[in-house]
């Protein structure tokens, strides 16, 4: 557990590191408030046409859904694969190792089936 306190410390340090640079820049950088159209959003030097806050077609949100499936799978893999080498008696082909191995094949088979399904359903196509 104390290890993860250190992670928190470093997260803070990272934020402070960036924050300090930005504060320092605030102090030393010049400021010329609002000259001309400098505070407009950049759109190749022209006034933007309409806001960017629109409901627009992302086109790849379905990938995100498929991703969820596979990402969860990766988490399941971690413990399974971690023990593939060490389970049972060291060395040798034990039943439990073969079972894990077969399980792995089955699991990935299911996943590949899902992938193929998504592929056939044109989820993996743009739009």
């Amino acid at each position, binding site marked *: 557990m*104390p*290890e993860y306190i*250190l*992670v928190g410390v*470093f*997260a803070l*340090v*990272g*934020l402070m*590191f*960036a*924050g300090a640079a*930005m504060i*320092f*820049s*605030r102090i*030393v*950088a*010049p*400021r010329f408030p609002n000259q001309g159209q400098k*505070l*407009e*959003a*950049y*759109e190749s030097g022209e006034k933007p046409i309409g*806001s*960017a*806050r629109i409901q*627009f077609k*992302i086109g*790849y949100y379905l*990938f*995100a859904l*498929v*991703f969820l499936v*596979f*990402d969860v799978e*990766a*988490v399941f*893999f*971690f413990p399974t*694969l*971690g*023990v*593939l*080498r*060490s389970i049972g008696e060291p*060395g040798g*082909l034990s039943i439990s190792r*073969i079972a894990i*191995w077969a399980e*792995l*094949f089955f699991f*990935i088979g299911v*996943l*590949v089936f899902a*992938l193929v399904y998504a*592929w056939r359903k044109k989820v*993996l196509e*743009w739009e």
Partner: protein
Amino acid sequence: MTPLSITHPLGDWIRQQLPSPFAAIANGLIAVIAIAMLVVVTAIFLVWLERKVCARFQARLGPTRVGPFGLLQPVADAIKLLMKENIRPRTVDQLAYFLAPLLPITGSFLVLIVIPFDHNLQVLDPDAGIVYVTAVSGMGILGVLIGGWGSNNKYSLLGSMRAGAQLFSYELSMVLCMLLIVMASGTASLRNIVLSQQGTILDWWIFKLPVAGLVAFLLFIVSSTAELNRGPLDLSEAEQELTGGFHTEYTGISFSMFFLAEFVNMFAAAGLGATLFLGGFLAPQIGWHPVDQLLAFIPGFIWFAAKAYFLIFLYMWTRWTFPRLRIDHLLSLEWKFLLPASLANLLLAATLVLFKWVIP
């Protein structure tokens, strides 16, 4: 393995001198300073290196004027970026716009602390080191997403949406490649992964698993390029299409935070690749005793740096050679090629491990 040992002698000495809570704090402080220094130095050096290497790829000289070989050029750039006016457009989302540049650099801090630079040069060695790395490495892209959305600019918006798609797609094959190493070495701790590659060069995971190791290494390089947002997979920046992508609206120091993080993340990813596939801090032993002794005499962190910079060179090489993919090709490449390939590769490796063709 105590979590706080920067180096054994120094850590032990501090532990002898101070009572334990203070010693932990002192060691922690040293770690913080060391990592912060590493971030700054790496970023500055890599900016210089990228410019130099890119120039040489393009038959140019690169920076030559500031300092010897232009070494101080990035320092000059940093000063310039610090002194630039911070223009915050009127239309941005204040909180998101401010928060976004802080996140990528924090992410790179968090990745760097688990990377074993040498036998005892590692801030933290969590048992599930690889899970931790995949968890925190997403932070950079989070910054990109938030920044792109907060900028209220159509170019940024497109860039950040692309970044999102790219992140979650390439995360998969990257995790699968790492999993392969976890399976082969039987541990998820980065330090133990390195130690599992002891022996000659042929004991590195890239060679030890015939075919599967090499394939996993290549897949790792490709998917980490996408994760790092570097060309040819730098879709969220894509300056020819989106002018600057997610950082179009960022100026001065807030832009340089993205920029800095990109380079530090590149070092972290290269370090990770070296750790997983190239034996990390271990010296490349060739099995001939006199040479091996000589090679082992060189400290581990130098070997680590050499391997990491070799990978960095690979990243730069591909970046300055290949044209950029289109976003739908990028996603097809992952889902229709890299993901099935890494799944098949994983199965191949599992079979190899099971029948112990390679691993004793």
